[in-house]
C-alpha cells in the first residue's frame, strides 16, 4: 500500500515506517510560540528545568498577537520573551515584523519537515509541504527543549479540486465552501491533502489561505504537494535550496475523497458564530456592516491587498463603514507600498494598521461595539472573537470585503468588478 503525504513526511522524520494510526516520536524541524502562548511555554520550561533549547536557530518567539502592546501587562510579557531569546539564543520576531504564520512561510518553513507552533493556525505551512500543526504551550515547549514530539499519524482526506475559479471567486471561497461541507469537526484528527488541476494552478499565497483554515474543520494539518510554484516561491525568498519534491503515492489509502469543481463556486461567506455556518454572499446581500477588516495570516498577503486595491481604486468606503487594513508582514507592507496599493487603499478611506494579527483576536485595535457587524478576511468568527460577545463576525474573501466596504452592506464582489 502506498503512502499519503502525511505518512511519507512522518516516516522521514521518525526513523521508522509511519502508517495512519501509529503513535510515533518525530523529529521537530521548527518550533515556535507567539506572545499569547509563549509566556506559558517559558514558564513550563523554567519549572521543569529544561531551559536548554535543542536547536535555537529553529526555535522562534513571535510578538504578533498583541503588538504593539496595548497594556502594561502585555508589554511585560513581551519583555519576558525578549529576555529569554537573549539568554537562550532562540530567534525572536519583534513588534511589527508580522504574523507568525506569514513569517514562518516567508523565512523558515522547509518542505518535508515537522513544524509545531503554539497557535492553531500553524497549519499554514502545510502549503509548502511541511507537516505543520498547532499544539499547546507545554507540547511546543518540550519540542523546543528536546527537538522531538509524539504524534499519532493521522488518516487522510484527499480534497480533489478540478476546474478553475470564475471571476470574483478566490481560494477563500473554496476553503469556506469546503468547511461548510465538512463541518467544524468534520476532519478532526485528520490530515487534509489537496490535489487536482485547480490546486496545481494556485499561487503560493492561495495555497497558504487554504492550508491556514484546515484547522477550522478540525484537521491536524492541511498538506499540498510541492511543485514548480513551491520552488519559485522558495527561490524568491532566497531559500531555493530547501526545496524537496513531495507527492503522495498514487495508491495511497484515503479515508475519504472529496471532489470540488472550482468553476461551480460562487463568492462564499461564513456567518456568525461558527466558521462552518456557510452561505453565498448574494444570499446575505444588504446586511449592514460597521467594520471591514482586510488582513491576517489567512488573507493579508500582497495579492489580497492587490484585489482590494483594484476594487477600491477611485472609490470611497461607505461613510458608516470603517475599513481597517493590516498587512501580514513588513515585507508584504513594503511590496504593497511599492506597488501603490497602500496609497489607493488610504485614498479610499482605509486605516492602515501595523503588520501583525491586528483586530483578528480582539486583544487590541479594532474591537467591535455592541451589536456591530464586521466583515473580516480572517479565519475565525466565534462569539467574542474580536473582543465583544455582543458583536457579529462574517468571514469572506478580500474581494467581498472591499466590495462590502464601498456599499456598507454585504455585497457580492462581482457586482463591482
Amino acid at each position, binding site marked *: 500500500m502506498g503512502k499519503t503525504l502525511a505518512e511519507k513526511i512522518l516516516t522521514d522524520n521518525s526513523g521508522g515506517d509511519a502508517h495512519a494510526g501509529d503513535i510515533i516520536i518525530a523529529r521537530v524541524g521548527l518550533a515556535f510560540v507567539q506572545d499569547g502562548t509563549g509566556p506559558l511555554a517559558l514558564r513550563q520550561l523554567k519549572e521543569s528545568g529544561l531551559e536548554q533549547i535543542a536547536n535555537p536557530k529553529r526555535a522562534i518567539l513571535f510578538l504578533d498577537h498583541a503588538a504593539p502592546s496595548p497594556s502594561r501587562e502585555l508589554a511585560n510579557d513581551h519583555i519576558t520573551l525578549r529576555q529569554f531569546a537573549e539568554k537562550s539564543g532562540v530567534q525572536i520576531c519583534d513588534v511589527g515584523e508580522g504574523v507568525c504564520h506569514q513569517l514562518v512561510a516567508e523565512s523558515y518553513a522547509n518542505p518535508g519537515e515537522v513544524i509545531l507552533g503554539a497557535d*492553531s493556525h500553524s497549519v499554514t505551512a502545510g502549503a509548502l509541504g511541511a507537516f505543520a500543526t498547532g499544539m499547546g504551550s507545554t507540547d511546543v515547549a518540550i519540542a523546543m527543549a528536546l527537538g522531538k514530539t509524539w504524534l499519532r499519524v493521522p488518516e487522510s482526506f484527499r480534497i480533489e479540486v478540478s476546474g478553475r475559479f470564475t471571476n470574483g471567486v478566490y481560494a477563500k471561497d473554496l476553503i469556506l465552501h469546503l468547511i461548510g461541507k465538512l463541518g467544524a469537526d468534520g476532519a478532526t484528527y485528520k490530515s487534509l491533502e489537496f490535489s487536482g488541476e485547480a490546486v496545481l494552478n494556485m499561487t503560493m499565497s492561495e495555497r497558504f489561505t487554504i492550508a491556514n483554515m484546515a484547522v477550522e474543520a*478540525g484537521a491536524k494539518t492541511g498538506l499540498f504537494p510541492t511543485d514548480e510554484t513551491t520552488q519559485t516561491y522558495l527561490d524568491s525568498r532566497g531559500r531555493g535550496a530547501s526545496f524537496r519534491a513531495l507527492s503522495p503515492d498514487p495508491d495511497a489509502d484515503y479515508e475519504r475523497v472529496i471532489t470540488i469543481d472550482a468553476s461551480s463556486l460562487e463568492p462564499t461567506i461564513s456567518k456568525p458564530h461558527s466558521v462552518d455556518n456557510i452561505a453565498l454572499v448574494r444570499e446575505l446581500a444588504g446586511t449592514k456592516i460597521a467594520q471591514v477588516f482586510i488582513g491576517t495570516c489567512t488573507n493579508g498577503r500582497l495579492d489580497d491587498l492587490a484585489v482590494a486595491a483594484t476594487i477600491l481604486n477611485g472609490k470611497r468606503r461607505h461613510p458608516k463603514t470603517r475599513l481597517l487594513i493590516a498587512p501580514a508582514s513588513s515585507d508584504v507592507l513594503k511590496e504593497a507600498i511599492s506597488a501603490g496599493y497602500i496609497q489607493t487603499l488610504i485614498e479610499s478611506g482605509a486605516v492602515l494598521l501595523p503588520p501583525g494579527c491586528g483586530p483578528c483576536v480582539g486583544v487590541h485595535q479594532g474591537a467591535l461595539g455592541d451589536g456591530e457587524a464586521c466583515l473580516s478576511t480572517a479565519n475565525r468568527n466565534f462569539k467574542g472573537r474580536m473582543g465583544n460577545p455582543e458583536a457579529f463576525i462574517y468571514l469572506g474573501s478580500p474581494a467581498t470585503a472591499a466590495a462590502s466596504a464601498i456599499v456598507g452592506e454585504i455585497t457580492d464582489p462581482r457586482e463591482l468588478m
Partner: protein
Amino acid sequence: MILKGGAHKYGANVDTDAIIPARYLNVSEPGELSRHCMEGIDGDFLKRVKPGDMLVATTNFGCGSSREHAPIAIKAAGVSCVIAQSFARIFFRNAINIGLPLLECAQADEIEQGDELEVELEKGEINDITKNKVFKAEPYPDFMLQLISMGGLIEYTMKKIETRGV
C-alpha cells in the same frame, strides 16, 4: 480513581474563546484564569460550580485556538473532568498534558444539566446517578495512558530523561 460531581451541560462546538477569552491570555496563574472560566458563554458558571463538578458537552468541545489556558482555567475552577461526544484535537492534548481528565462518550448528549455523576476513570465508566444509567467512555491508547498515569507531559519527559536519556 472515582470522581463525583454535578453536570454543567453545553452543546456543540464550545470554543476556546468561550472557555477563556483572548483578553486573559496574559494571565498564566491558574487561580486567576479560573475566575474567567466559561465567561464567553456562561456568565453564571462560576456562581454555580462546586469542586468536583463536571463539564458535559456534545461534539467538538474545545475547538479553536491552541491556548492551553483553556484546560488550565477549567481545572483550576475545580472541575474534575470533561465529558463530551468528541473533543478538538489540540484541546485534547493540552488537557492530558496538564492533567485534566477527558472522557469521550457517544452518549454524553443523554446527560442533562444538574445530573449527579460518578466517574471511574480507569474503567472509563460514567454513572449518571440521577438517571440511574451507566455510560461507557472510549479507552485511551496505551501511550496516552502512560502519559496520564505519570501526571502529564512534563513529568513523562523528566522520567524519560532520568531513565535513559532522550
